[in-house]
C-alpha cells in the first residue's frame, strides 16, 4: 500500500471511523442504535462501548501491517457480542466489516476520480476482505463455543441424573479398568 493512500486514510480517520461506528450501530433497531450512540458509560452501555473502543484501533491495524493477532484482538470483542444477539443472521453479524469499503469510497471520491489511489484502493479492499475472513473465523469460533457450552450443560445434567439414580459407580483407583 502506498504512503499516499495511508496518509489520506490517516487524515480522514476520524470521519471514516465515526461513520463506520454509525453504520455498525444502525444495524440494530432505531431505539437500540440511539441508545448505543448516546450512553457513554462503559458499564451501562457495554455493547456501544465495545464497538467504539475497538473500531479505531482496528482501522489503524488495517492501514498499517494488519498483524493477525492484533487485528483479531480488536475484532473479537465485537463479533463475540454479535454472535449471540438474536436480531442478527450470521451474515448480518459480520457484514459491518464490508461496509467499511463503501465508507472509504465515499470519503475518497475525489481522489478516486483523479485516479490517484485507485490501484492502491483495490489492494486495501483486499485487506478488508481479509478482515471479513477473520471475522468469519471469529464468528464460527464463538458459535462453536456456544454449542460446546450447551452440550456440556446437557452432559452434566445427564451425568448427575445418572448419578442420582445410582447408576454411576466409580472404579477404585487401585483396580485397572480392564480387569
Amino acid at each position, binding site marked *: 500500500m502506498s504512503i499516499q493512500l495511508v496518509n489520506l486514510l490517516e487524515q480522514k480517520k476520524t470521519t471514516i471511523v465515526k461513520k463506520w461506528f454509525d*453504520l455498525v450501530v*444502525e*444495524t*440494530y*433497531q*432505531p*431505539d*437500540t442504535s440511539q*441508545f*448505543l450512540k448516546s*450512553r457513554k*458509560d*462503559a*458499564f*451501562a*452501555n*457495554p*455493547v456501544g462501548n465495545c464497538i467504539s473502543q475497538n473500531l479505531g484501533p482496528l482501522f489503524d491495524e488495517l492501514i498499517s501491517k494488519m498483524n493477525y493477532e492484533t487485528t483479531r484482538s480488536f475484532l473479537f470483542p465485537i463479533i*463475540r*457480542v454479535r454472535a*449471540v*444477539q*438474536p*436480531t442478527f*443472521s450470521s*451474515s*448480518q453479524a459480520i*457484514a*459491518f466489516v464490508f*461496509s467499511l469499503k463503501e465508507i472509504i469510497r465515499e470519503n475518497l471520491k475525489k481522489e478516486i476520480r483523479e485516479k490517484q489511489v485507485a490501484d492502491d484502493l483495490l489492494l486495501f479492499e483486499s485487506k478488508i476482505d481479509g478482515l471479513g475472513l477473520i471475522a468469519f473465523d471469529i464468528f464460527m469460533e*464463538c458459535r462453536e*463455543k*456456544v454449542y460446546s*457450552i*450447551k452440550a*456440556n*450443560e*446437557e452432559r*452434566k*445434567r445427564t451425568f*448427575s441424573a445418572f448419578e*442420582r439414580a445410582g447408576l454411576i459407580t466409580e472404579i477404585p483407583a487401585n483396580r485397572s479398568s480392564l480387569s
Partner: protein
Amino acid sequence: MSKLPKSDEYFSKIKHDKTSGAEWMDTPTVIREGMFCYAAKPASVETLGLPFPREWNPLHEDWKLPENWKEIIHKGFRDRLERFRSFKVFMDICVRCGACSDKCHFFIGTGDPKNMPVVRAELLRSVYRNDFTKVGKILGKLGGARELTLDVLKEWWYYMFQCTECRRCSVFCPYGIDTAEITMMGRELLNLLGLNIDWIATPVSNCYKTGNHMGIQPHAFKDMLDFFVDEIEEVTGVLVEPQFNKKGADILFITPSGDVFGDPGTYTCMGYMILLHYLKVKYGLNITWSTYASEGGNFGLFTSNEVMKRLNAKMYAEAKRLGVKWILGGECGHMWRVINQYMGTMNGPADFLEEPVNPITGTKFENAKSTKMVHIVEFTADLIKHGKLDLDPARNDHLKVTFHDSCNPARGMGMLDEPRYVIKNVCNNFYEMPRNCIREQTFCCGSGSGLNASEDMELRLAGGLPRANAVKYVHDKHGVNMMACICAIDRAVFPPLMEYWVPEVDVTGLHEMVANALIIPGEKEKTVDLRGEDILDKEKVGTDEFYTRPSFSGR
C-alpha cells in the same frame, strides 16, 4: 446451473445494513431457537392441576390453544386487575418517560427493543388499554392500544420469558412501577392456557411431589449429604455429622437443592456443613436439616402466586412438625424474595415459631420478626462481628475475589453489606465491580426466574453480558479470578457465562470461602481447599514449604 442466483443478486437480498425502523408494534416477533425454553411437559402441568396440559411446540404454528382462549385471557386479566391493586396501578400510571428503557440486561445484551422494560410492559398494557379503557377503545393504535391476537399472545410468551424478574428497571422508575410484577402477571395469564416452560413446570411438579426442584427423594438427599461428609473428612480430617428431621432441634436449616446437586454449589453446601459442625462443637448449636422441606427455592414464584404459596407452605409445615424455634435459610436468590416479600402474609404469620435470636451471640433478628426465617449470611456476619469464628483469611489468598450482588437478596431484601462484611473477613483480596453494576444497581446473571435451561443459552449469554462485562473489568484491572455470589442459580449459571465472556474467572458461594478460612477444631494440616485445589502457590513459597505447610495463624 443457470438457475443459481448471481452473487450480486444474492447479496442484495441479504439485509445487512440499516433496519426497517418500524415501531415496536409494527415489528413482527420471530421466535428464534436459543432464545426460549422448551414447552412444559403435560405431566408436570398436571401435577398441580393447572389448566390445559398438552404437548405443544413454540416453533409450530398451532399452539393447540383452547377454542375460547381469548375469553380466558380477558377474564383472567380482569380478575387480576380487580384482585391486585398494584397491577391496576402499574397498567395506568406509566408515562413512558424511558427511565427504565436502557436498564434491562436483556435489552443491553440482546439489543432487542422489545426487551426494554417499558416496551415489555407495553405488550400487556396495549391489550389492557384496548380491553379495559375507554380511551384505548376509542383511539385504538393511536392511543397505544391493540387487540389481543394469536401473534400478540405468542409475543407475550416470547418476551415474558425473556425477563428474569430481577427488578433492576424498577430501581430507576420514578413512579415505582415494578415491571417484574407485570411479568409475573403476564406469566400467570399464560399459565391459564397451559403456556409454561418446562424448566419451571417440571421443578415445580418435582417440588410438589418430593419436596425439592430436582425431584430427589429423602433417602437420596441424605445420601448426597453423606457423600459430602466423606469429602469434607478427606480434605479437613474432620467428621461432620449433620442431623436430619430431628424433632426438638432449635433451628431448621433449609437451602436450595441446587446446592446439594450441582457444582460449584456443592462446595457451598459443604461450607454450610462445616460451619454448622463448628458451631455445634464449639457452642452446642442444635440445628437440623430436613429431607422433606429440602428446597429453599420456589419456582412457584415464576408460575403464579397460588403455586408459590402451595410450595412455600412446606417450610412452615416442616418447622411446625419438628417443633423448631425458627428457620435458617441458605444462600439463595428468589427464595429470599418469596420469604421477605410474600411469605409473611401468604402463609404467615407463623405464630408457632419464635422471633429468631442467634443462640450464640444473643442477637435478635428483628427483620425476620414476621417470617421467622434468617439468611445464613446475616447469621454468619453476626457470628464474625461477635468474634465467634476462628478465621484465617490467608487460606483464601490464592483467590482474588469480586462479589456479585444477587438480584433478589440485594433488591428484594436490601441485603447489601452483610455479604461484603463476611467476604472481607474470610479473604484478603476483595475488589468491587464499578458502582453502577453492584448493590441495588446490580446486573442480573441473565438466567434467573426459571430461564436457566441450556436450550436458551444464547438468551442467557446475551442477557449476562452486562454482568460479565463488569467482571471482565475487575479481572483485567485487578486480576480477579473468583466471583462470589449468594444465590444457587447464580452458582449454576455463572460458570457457562464466564466460560464465554471471561474464562479466567471461576464462581463460588460465600460459605465455601467461609469454610476454607475456618479453623475447625481437630482439623488436619490443610494444603488444599474444598475443591482439592492448592491453597498455596508452589512457585511462590517453594517446594519445601508447600509440602510441609501450613503454619496458619491460630493453629
